């Protein structure tokens, strides 16, 4: 049976927002057929994407909002994330090598690695040319 569920919400571009985002995604996934491990990995991936946008994005105002759309269709999770930051495609950024991360005792740089590892990621400019439109899906390579 083809059951589609969706939910949309907006977040301020502040790190304090990440907790609310995770709570919202967990609630959305709650009744899905994803395993606990899958749910954890989906929450982790979206959290890492949002943290990356909030920490490194260049926004026109402090009141900017990130628009997040969550969809489950045929047991595949989809997310669309729209922001009004300057153009940035995480797929063009070489992810951190975990071996380097560990051997050099680095304190960051693994966020992009995590969500690129776990999810299909496609970036394009928003149709209104005002920022980024990121498409993500889980599991990877479906």
């Amino acid at each position, binding site marked *: 049976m083809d059951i589609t569920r969706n939910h949309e919400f907006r977040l301020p571009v502040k*790190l304090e927002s990440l907790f609310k985002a995770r709570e919202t995604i967990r609630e959305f996934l709650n009744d899905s057929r994803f395993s606990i491990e899958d749910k954890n990995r989906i929450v982790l991936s979206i959290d*890492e994407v949002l943290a990356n946008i909030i920490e490194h994005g260049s926004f026109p105002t402090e009141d900017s909002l990130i628009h997040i759309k969550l969809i489950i269709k045929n047991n595949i999770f989809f997310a669309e994330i729209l922001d009004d930051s300057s153009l940035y495609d995480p797929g063009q950024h070489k992810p951190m090598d975990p071996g380097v991360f*560990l051997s050099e*005792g680095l304190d*960051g*740089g693994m*966020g992009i690695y995590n969500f690129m590892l776990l999810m299909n990621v496609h970036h394009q400019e928003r149709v209104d040319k005002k920022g980024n439109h990121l498409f993500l899906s889980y599991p990877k390579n479906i």
Partner: protein
Amino acid sequence: MSTPTLKITESKIGNVIVLALTGELDAKTAPDFRTQLDAHIAAGFPKIVCDCKNLTYVASAGIGVMNAILKSASAKSGELKLASVNKDIRDTMELMYFTKKVKIYGSVEEAVQNFD
């Protein structure tokens, strides 16, 4: 709106600092965690155990702090060890191969006993 929370409760067993983590360790809460760990190492206590029994979420930012502290503690002849790590937290650490580097124990007592 809900706010991110990470409560850190400190105790000491001998010369080992035990930090009991409760809540979520993410990009927002990781800097305060780092500050606390750095302070203990600077004060001459580089042997640290993080009790993760009540840690419910960790992002790469949190693991990054632990990874960096492993290096700075080692430079002072210490180490960061973890205790009571749940399955979800361990899965996230395994994604980043962090479980190949950090030592994880079933309990705080076991972690403390395994310091030299």
